[in-house]
């Protein structure tokens, strides 16, 4: 940790000096001449220097001595390990700022440094003046971390504040991500002010002190983290839950939140997700037919979304939803996910079954149509959606998740799930633990989606089922199960995410509230918030998804209407999602990682995740996702059956549609 001498925290003001004296620097370079010179220079700056000529050695030093260093300077070209790999490792495990240096000043290499998260890039020969200012990176990083903690989970966008470079992901979110990066600081500060993050209240205090002890993410810890995230679902993973699951004494939610952010970025980077989702969305949209005939389409979407790799195209979902809003239906797989919050459980439920529209979809469409699964379809959904249910609000919620919409949302959510797998592997490979990283980033997203989902809640039957239910037949009744989520088995989750966005964006059609109606939506609050505060979404992301999911569980049909609002929110948000990206991003990210949405309900779960994804950095989800295929997030297969049945039971609706067998849906069938 930074010792008091550094005065890095709030009292840094006092350090007119000695800070940055005493800054603990680790220098890694295989060239002994350079190493010696750098050491001398750093010592002249009054820093405490440790030399190292091998990257492996440096890593082990860092691991052994957590909190032992404040900043790392590393050469790019080293024989035993690529400097960028080291950079990634350090970022993930120890979360220290890393400066790259090289005699090579070509733009491509510098860019690489930036995208890998280096806080700075020095060209050799390094001058002492350049070294005198490296302390700024340490301070900046700390500040960002504080911000992150505050928003934990909410401001995913910030991702690793320090990493301004978060490489612009190829995802659609790229822009957003890079933008996010830039905004991170500002947004985080913004967020802080907003204080919306409910959870963060406590964080705030911590941050204010600025004396957060740095947590060193050891390999084991990281693996625990990844395991927890995976279990929760990348998109859905919320710092709070992760923290609980990890059960590591002394670990705070902020720590987890910031790590999650980084992880998500990492995953994103690996997965390059989100692109698919965009496609998926389209497909979804088409699927949406008002009468939900398209259920299948939804399914298709979901499938597609799922197929997209988990990315369940939250984006697509979002798009679909938007498009589908009119269509009602299924598109919102993601949205329906909202109930997903409980996501795991919820989705398991019936949604998958329902959604998949295999058969259900149809019915759902009716209802869903309105649901506009993708929530994106604001307004549109409402009226249409539930023919029976007034909720049209649903749109917001999950865009028609309700009755048939479920499908959609699920689709969205899934994507998130996808991300995990993917990202994890690729990215982490370098890290070795990479998986965890991935999950973090993914999970981040998922949270969002999850959050979103909640918004959708109830209307769809708890959104989660929404996906399922969507197909189910919601018809008029939108019984919760209709969750369009069903349609996208995997997607389910995303739906919620999108919802949130929509919710926020659409403002609420009350959607959140509406949606929650049945559910008692505690989670819908998220959505509710959305409308009002778009930003709120981000907050929601705070992994309120969990709440959302819970809400869903309650889903009562009544809630369904409420739930719809969430879906609507979704849809609207999907449209607007751009902002919310978070969900989308999450979803997408997850979706991608997840690998083709496991048709299984997991997708649905993911859809729900959308709720979380809302927050998910927009990076990934390229907004379209309102219903980010977050469903994929749930890659864990929530026992959808359980969820669905649970939901259905609650609603009193016969869980019928277990037909979901999403698995059956081969995504290829999705009539995109």
């Amino acid at each position: 940790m930074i010792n008091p001498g550094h005065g890095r925290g709030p009292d840094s003001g006092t350090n007119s000096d000695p800070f940055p004296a005493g800054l603990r620097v680790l220098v890694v370079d295989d060239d002994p001449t350079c190493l010696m010179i750098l050491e001398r220079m750093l010592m002249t700056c009054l820093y405490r220097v440790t030399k190292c000529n091998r990257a492996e050695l440096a890593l082990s030093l860092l691991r052994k001595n957590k909190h032992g260093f404040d900043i790392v300077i590393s050469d790019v070209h080293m024989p035993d390990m690529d400097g960028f790999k080291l950079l990634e490792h350090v970022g993930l495990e120890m979360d220290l700022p890393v400066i790259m240096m090289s005699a090579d000043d070509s733009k491509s290499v510098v860019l690489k440094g930036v995208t890998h998260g280096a806080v700075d890039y020095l060209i050799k020969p390094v001058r002492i003046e350049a070294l005198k200012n490296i302390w700024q990176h340490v301070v900046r990083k700390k500040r960002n971390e504080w911000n992150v903690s505050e928003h934990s989970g909410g401001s995913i966008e910030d991702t690793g504040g320090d990493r301004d470079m978060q490489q612009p992901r190829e995802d659609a979110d790229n822009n957003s991500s890079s933008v996010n990066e830039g905004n991170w600081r500002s947004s985080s500060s913004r967020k802080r002010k907003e204080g919306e993050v409910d959870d963060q209240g406590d964080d705030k205090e911590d941050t204010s002190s600025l004396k957060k002890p740095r947590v060193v993410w050891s390999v084991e810890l990281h693996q625990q983290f990844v395991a927890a995230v995976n279990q929760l679902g990348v998109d859905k993973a919320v710092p709070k839950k992760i923290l609980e699951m990890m059960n590591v004494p002394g670990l705070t939610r902020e720590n987890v939140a910031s790590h999650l952010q980084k992880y998500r970025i990492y995953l994103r980077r690996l997965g390059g997700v989100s692109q698919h989702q965009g496609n998926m969305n389209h497909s979804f949209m088409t699927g949406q037919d008002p009468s939900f005939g398209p259920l299948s389409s939804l399914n298709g979407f979901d499938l597609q979304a799922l197929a997209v790799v988990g990315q369940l195209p939250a984006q697509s979902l979002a798009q679909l939803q938007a498009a589908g809003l009119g269509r009602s239906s299924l598109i919102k797989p993601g949205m329906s996910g909202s109930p997903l919050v409980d996501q795991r459980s919820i989705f398991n439920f019936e949604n998958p079954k329902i959604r998949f529209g295999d058969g259900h979809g149809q019915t759902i469409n009716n209802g869903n149509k309105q649901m506009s699964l993708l929530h994106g379809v604001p307004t549109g959904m409402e009226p249409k959606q539930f023919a029976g249910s007034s909720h049209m609000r649903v749109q917001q919620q999950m865009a028609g998740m309700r009755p048939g919409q479920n499908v959609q949302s699920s689709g969205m959510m899934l994507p998130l799930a996808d991300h995990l797998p993917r990202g994890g592997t690729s990215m982490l490979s370098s890290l070795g633990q990479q998986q965890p990283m991935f999950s973090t980033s993914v999970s981040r997203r998922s949270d969002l989606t999850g959050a979103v989902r909640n918004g959708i809640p109830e209307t769809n039957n708890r959104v989660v089922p929404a996906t399922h239910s969507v197909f189910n037949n919601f018809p008029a009744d939108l019984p919760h199960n209709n969750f369009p989520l069903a349609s996208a088995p995997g997607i389910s989750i995303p739906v919620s995410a999108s919802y949130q966005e929509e919710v926020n964006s659409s403002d609420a059609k009350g959607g959140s509230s509406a949606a929650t109606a049945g559910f008692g939506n505690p989670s819908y609050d998220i959505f509710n918030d959305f409308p009002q505060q778009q930003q709120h979404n981000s907050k929601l992301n705070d992994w309120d998804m969990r709440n959302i999911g819970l809400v869903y569980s309650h889903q009562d049909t009544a809630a369904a209407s409420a739930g719809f609002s969430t879906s609507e929110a979704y849809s609207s948000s999907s449209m607007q999602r751009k902002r919310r990206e978070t969900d989308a991003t999450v979803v997408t990210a997850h979706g991608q990682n997840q690998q083709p949405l496991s048709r299984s309900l997991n997708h649905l779960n993911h859809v729900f995740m959308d709720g979380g994804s809302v927050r998910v950095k927009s990076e990934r989800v390229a907004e379209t996702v309102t219903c980010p295929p977050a469903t994929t997030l749930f890659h864990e297969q929530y026992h959808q059956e359980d969820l669905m049945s649970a939901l259905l039971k609650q609603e009193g609706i016969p869980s019928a549609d277990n037909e979901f067998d999403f698995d059956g849906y081969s995504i290829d069938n999705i009539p995109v």
Partner: protein
Amino acid sequence: MQRQVALIKQSLFDQGYLDEQFMELEELQDDANPNFVEEVSALYFKDSARLINNIDQALERGSFDFNRLDNYMHQFKGSSTSIGASKVKTECTKFREYCRAGNAEGCLRTFHQLKKEHSTLRKKLEHYFQLARQAGPKETARRPK
């Protein structure tokens, strides 16, 4: 004596053997580390000798693995740059260009030149440091005009 030392140093700069980076290094030298520059130079020559050896062997093998040669040279260039060995650095750059062009002949020629520059610099510096030590510690960090 010190004046002599100063003159020698000046000539090294003037002739382009050394550049500003060397001055930077001198600035790092102080009473606590009076022989810093000399130590760094010694280290540099030791390390670069190793690199030169590697490159020699690679070239002798006849199989021009330009990638590997480029890698070696990248390291060499990095060190030389850090110490301010200007002429050596120039030769390194040339060598790398030939590598990228796949010009084996050019590589050989350049490398030969590089070795020459390298050994010239080494001798001059050794002489310089020797005198500087004799002249006394105070002479350091005087920037040549």
